[in-house]
């Protein structure tokens, strides 16, 4: 087989092999809309500097970790959006409160600040305390000193506890705490001994905010997309079935047009190899495939098959002597078409509107690998097949 010695065919085969190895050993990971989990986008009130963005990231990560979510991915999008990906099912109601809480905590007695969130050295997980269900915590020495000074002689006054300017609790200051001595242990109670679901959520939100500190700005939730794992796997199954049937449809059209398995098979095999190349590339850069990426694969393979049809027809048309010129023209068309497709995807790649970055990346990668790897090889294969 002379064909197997052609450098372009060898490059394609090597790339396919590399993709298969990558897929087999490194694997392909799916985005949260296919594997299950949630994507949340927070909008910050003002634009953030890079260091503020880092602080926000750290605080949000610690807040989610505190609530038992370990494998979260948090990254900024522009200077006023934060994207959070949680690849497991989680209680969205609570997470929403935890994330959007700015977490500025102040305790006020008789219009004087007794302590703030920064005076807290240690927070206990919510639970039942001597005075009811709530969160116990310890003040720093300085904080406790300040509290002792402010509270002195104010027994019977309410202690107004504010979280982000909302009054969350106002217990009455007992006389023991108003004796001017230092009392580091404190409790915020949210309910009696039988807390409701809402009370428990609230206690956890307070606990999380005290534990992680306050965000430099206010944030609000702008986008949530949550998919349960069972439905995610249905999506993957559906996409595979759809892809398979689409492939059969393409095979039917091509067979009807060329009626020659020697032409039809290389087109289909090369088309399929492009799917492998894109998946291999996704695995290489650890790109998480989401529904939009699947649409991108469809787009790339679709143009791939179109281009192979151009190559085939030009090869058939270029009678004996003029094959080289004909192939040149085919590649002129293909490069032109690929350049326009990439040009059309570029804004999306840069802007990342909505969740479409995956779509742009897979399309651009697919088109680039197509014109550099699989189509040159296909052109050699089809020339070889038609000569014999």
């Amino acid at each position, binding site marked *: 087989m002379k064909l197997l010695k052609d450098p372009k065919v060898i490059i394609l085969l090597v790339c396919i092999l590399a993709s298969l190895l990558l897929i087999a050993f490194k694997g392909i990971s799916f985005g949260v809309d296919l594997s299950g989990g949630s994507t949340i986008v927070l909008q910050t009130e003002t634009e953030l500097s890079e260091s503020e963005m880092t602080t926000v990231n750290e605080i949000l990560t610690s807040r989610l970790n505190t609530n038992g979510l370990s494998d979260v991915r948090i990254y900024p999008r522009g200077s006023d959006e934060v994207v959070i990906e949680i690849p497991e099912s989680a209680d969205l109601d609570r997470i929403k409160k935890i994330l959007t809480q700015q977490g500025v905590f102040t305790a006020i007695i008789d219009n004087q600040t007794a302590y703030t969130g920064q005076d807290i050295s240690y927070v206990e997980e919510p639970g039942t305390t001597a005075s009811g269900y709530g969160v116990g915590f310890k003040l720093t020495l300085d904080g406790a000193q300040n509290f002792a000074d402010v509270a002195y002689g104010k027994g019977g006054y309410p202690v107004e506890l504010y979280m982000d300017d909302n009054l969350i609790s106002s217990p009455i200051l007992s006389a023991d705490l108003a004796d001017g001595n230092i009392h580091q242990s404190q409790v915020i109670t949210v309910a009696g001994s039988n807390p409701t679901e809402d009370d428990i959520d609230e206690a956890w939100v307070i606990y999380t905010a005290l534990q992680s500190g306050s965000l430099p700005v206010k944030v609000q939730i702008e*986008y949530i997309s949550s998919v349960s794992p069972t439905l995610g796997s249905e999506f993957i199954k559906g996409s595979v079935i759809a892809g398979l049937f689409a492939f059969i449809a393409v095979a039917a059209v091509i067979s009807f047009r060329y009626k020659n398995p020697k032409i039809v098979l290389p087109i289909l095999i090369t088309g399929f190899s492009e799917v492998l190349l894109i998946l291999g590339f996704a695995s290489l850069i650890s790109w998480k495939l989401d529904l939009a990426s699947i649409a991108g694969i469809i787009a790339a393979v679709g143009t791939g098959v179109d281009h192979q049809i151009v190559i085939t027809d030009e090869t058939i048309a270029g009678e004996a002597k003029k094959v080289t010129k004909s192939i040149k023209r085919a590649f002129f068309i293909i490069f032109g078409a690929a350049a326009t497709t990439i040009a059309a995807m570029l804004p999306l790649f840069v802007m990342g509107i909505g969740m479409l970055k995956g779509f742009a990346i897979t399309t651009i990668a697919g088109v680039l690998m197509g014109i550099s790897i699989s189509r040159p090889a296909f052109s050699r294969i089809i020339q070889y097949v038609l000569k014999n």
Partner: protein
Amino acid sequence: MNINYKVLTIIPLILALLSLALVSVHGLKESIDVSGGTEISILASENTDLSVLKEKLPDSEVKISESSIGTFVVIKSGLDTDVDSVRAVVKEFFNVEDLSELSYTEKQIGSVLSGKFWEEGMKAVGFAFIFMAIVVYAIFRTPVPSGAVILAAASDMAIAIGGMSLFGIPISTATIAALLMLVGYSVDTDIMLTTRVLKRRTGTLDERISGAMKTGITMSLTTIFAMAVLYLVVTFVVPAADVLANIAAVLLIGLIGDLMLTWMTNAGILRYYMTEYKKGK
């Protein structure tokens, strides 16, 4: 024959103008990407009586569709509806403590992000179009043939958007993606046609155009059939993945429009360019 091809050239352009008129009168259906709000889809087992759920959610739009793996319920609520109460009703109906116990998806979009949608979407489509036009001009470097390709692509987008308005396909991030894909697909056949006509030296003009047509129609048909299949499979197997179904539908409409625009309009302009315009110079 002469008058014939000129008339054919204009027909798809009139269709594109009618599409724009339709969009301006009838408007486009908005997904929650545009309007903001919440969309919850649940895969329920087949013999669930969902009419009760419908009654309990008077402020939301409840859509039920059967598929081979069960019944999909899609609950759509606007920004002014309290999502927590919708969730509470759903939880109670399906008797679960948390929605993540169900086969479900939830998408929620706030007012800031949805407000930015038009601006960002228009920017993406606008720049895509400008970049494409620059590349097309760089390829052919002659104004009339390049202009014909760009005109065909623009009219094709108009027809696709008109089709979205006609068939109630909502404008969303997914359909914006489809429109961008369409730019790529529709220009492919136009570039092929123009290259064949301008660069091939063998055969008469008619032979070159009909040769290009044979190639181009095969190209379009493979994609049209693939998209039709994608649309049907998603609709009947996983209706909740309607992202893919919407993309397929927009491409289907656009590619059918592209068949007309490439082989009637673009071919017509090229014919005029080769036979009359060049001679006139």
